[in-house]
């Protein structure tokens, strides 16, 4: 029989990645008890695992572009009014300068050693050089250490499954230890969810499902928990595709275009210019869109071309950027036999996913105080909509920590969870141990990916979307037959459960939105134009197994 562990705290943070760790650190500043829970080891948890190379920052250093006004104006145009800019202003703009200082105080090298200035680059049609190029290999470990030193209580290797809701308020959350199988109940005055991106629901072009752009171990748990707790998520129909090296979904595009690299087709043409006047300096969506059309029309394969760059630019890219953002980048090049400075590097369109790239409009609906629509529940980072990118997520998390702490300080006592709710969730968690079904989580997850890629991927139609939704509902029934042999299996099964819910949300949103928007992200063959009367967000709630959709007009 599994042990049952109860933990009482003031602020519970679910998700120990970059955003969650910042949330925990911030919430702790007022002396509250803070618990940080992650299914990994926390030290290098989340997408920040082995490092990052770009840090988005508006520093107000002098030039006109380096101001909140210019940045926010651009960001509003980028997100087409589907993101509330008030959030970006409060959680990001008001915090970023101080965050960069804090990281430098912690010893993170934001500047090259001996240099006075930051190295800053721009990409994706940004009006300014917002990306500080830095060595972020020690970033996640450093903030993890700071959180631990500050007295945040770490709970690693615990997969959180659901929120506890009493009288419409979030009072805690439950999960299990992925090695021992022990059951965990956390009670808290405020809960912050920060479990990051959602991926693994679309087929991977390499055939390896875990070879993903952002962490494959993030499967939309916060988004799914929010839906199950009565909260709201938005714009799930937009699925992000990016450009990565062939067969290896590594981050590289930002670094490549930021340093002036080119994208060329099999004929050597810089094809992005056909799809946007600024070519590789155009907005992010233009590159996967252009690559898609080129490949469809027989002018692929397509490539990164770095051969024309100066020696110093090549050196910076190949030594300080690519292997810092993706630790195994040079292993890939060496083992594939490519010299990126001298050879063309074949590229691909990545798997579909919900990452928090800068421009993302999908995820948990929160206000500028990081509050979800469920009292006591806060969200920040990639799982919520407000501001993307690593720096954005860290500020978002820090904000959520500050707001949740303020809320917790006001609340005199912790509401009790409902015993029957705990019993029900506990039964569901451990049910797979008892099943004698035919299916493993791999079987069912492979099927999910097939459904999503066949019916809910690039080039959608009403009939295809309806067929896809039907298949997803069928898959839900098979879900009850998946067996587990250990805590690792249970963790993957719960990830699959969250992915399935998110996937249904994608289908519902995609069916509703009868237009095309954001390039490949939501491309309806039957409604191929972007329409003004669709300048609005889809908002989903979930109750008794049904989705409900509402609309929020674009923010002006």
């Amino acid at each position, binding site marked *: 029989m599994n042990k049952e562990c109860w933990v009482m705290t003031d602020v519970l943070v679910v998700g120990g990645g970059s955003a969650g760790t910042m949330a925990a650190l911030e919430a702790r500043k007022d002396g509250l008890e803070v618990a940080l829970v992650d299914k990994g080891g926390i030290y*290098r948890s989340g997408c920040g*695992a082995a490092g990052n190379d770009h840090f988005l920052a508006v520093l107000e250093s002098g030039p006109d572009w380096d101001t909140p006004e210019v940045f926010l104006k651009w960001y509003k145009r980028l997100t087409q009014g589907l993101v509330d800019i008030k959030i970006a202003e409060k959680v990001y703009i008001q915090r970023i300068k101080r965050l960069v200082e804090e990281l430098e105080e912690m010893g993170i090298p934001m500047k090259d050693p001996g240099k006075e200035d930051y190295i800053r680059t721009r990409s994706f049609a940004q009006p300014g050089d917002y990306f500080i190029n830095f060595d972020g290999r020690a970033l996640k470990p450093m903030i993890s250490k700071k959180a631990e030193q500050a007295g945040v209580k770490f709970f*690693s290797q615990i997969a959180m499954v659901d929120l506890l809701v009493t009288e419409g308020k979030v009072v805690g959350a439950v999960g299990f230890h992925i090695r021992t199988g022990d059951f965990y109940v956390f009670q808290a005055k405020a809960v912050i969810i920060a479990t990051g991106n959602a991926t693994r629901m679309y087929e991977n072009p390499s055939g390896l499902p875990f070879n993903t752009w952002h962490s494959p171990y993030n499967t939309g748990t916060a988004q799914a928990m929010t839906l199950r707790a009565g909260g709201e998520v938005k714009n799930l129909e937009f699925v992000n595709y990016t450009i990565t090296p062939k067969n290896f979904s590594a981050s590289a595009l930002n670094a490549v275009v930021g340093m002036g690299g080119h994208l060329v087709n099999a004929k050597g043409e810089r094809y992005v210019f056909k799809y946007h006047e600024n070519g590789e300096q155009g907005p992010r969506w233009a590159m996967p869109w252009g690559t898609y059309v080129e490949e469809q029309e027989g002018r692929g394969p397509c490539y990164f071309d770095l051969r024309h760059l100066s020696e110093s630019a090549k050196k910076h890219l190949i030594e300080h950027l690519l292997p810092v953002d993706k630790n195994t980048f040079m292993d890939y090049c060496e083992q594939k036999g490519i010299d990126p400075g001298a050879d063309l590097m074949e590229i691909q369109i990545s798997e579909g996913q919900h990452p928090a790239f800068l421009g993302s409009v999908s995820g948990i609906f929160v206000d500028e105080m990081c509050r979800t629509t469920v009292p006591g529940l806060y969200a920040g980072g990639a799982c919520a909509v407000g501001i993307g990118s690593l720096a954005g997520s860290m500020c978002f998390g820090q904000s959520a920590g500050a707001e949740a702490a303020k809320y917790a300080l006001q609340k005199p006592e912790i509401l009790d969870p409902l015993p029957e709710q705990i019993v029900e969730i506990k039964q569901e968690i451990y049910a797979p141990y008892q099943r004698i079904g035919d299916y493993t989580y791999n079987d069912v997850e492979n099927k999910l990916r097939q459904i999503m890629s066949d019916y809910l991927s690039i080039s959608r139609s009403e009939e295809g979307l309806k067929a896809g939704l039907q298949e997803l509902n069928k898959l839900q029934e098979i879900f009850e037959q998946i067996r587990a042999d250990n805590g690792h299996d249970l963790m993957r099964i719960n990830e699959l459960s969250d992915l399935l819910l998110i996937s249904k949300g994608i289908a519902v949103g995609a069916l509703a939105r009868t237009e095309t928007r954001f390039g490949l992200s939501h491309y309806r063959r039957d409604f191929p134009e972007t329409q003004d009367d669709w300048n609005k967000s889809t908002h989903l709630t979930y109750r008794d197994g049904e989705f409900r959709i509402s609309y929020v007009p674009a923010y002006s």
Partner: protein
Amino acid sequence: MLPIKIDYKRCNGCGICERNCPGDLIFMDQATKMPVVKYPEECWLCGACRIDCPKECIQIVFPLISL
């Protein structure tokens, strides 16, 4: 498929690779006290296991279909 190759002659059994792995792929064997890659097909190819290894005994070997 074995993307994470550990040189057991150099490994000191510190367990940092197990702690760092975001995917729960690496398990310290109770008997041998050595790290075992239990779920190699779930590897993200991120390098977190290797980055802090004090003995530099981890190699990342890309599976053929990821090259």
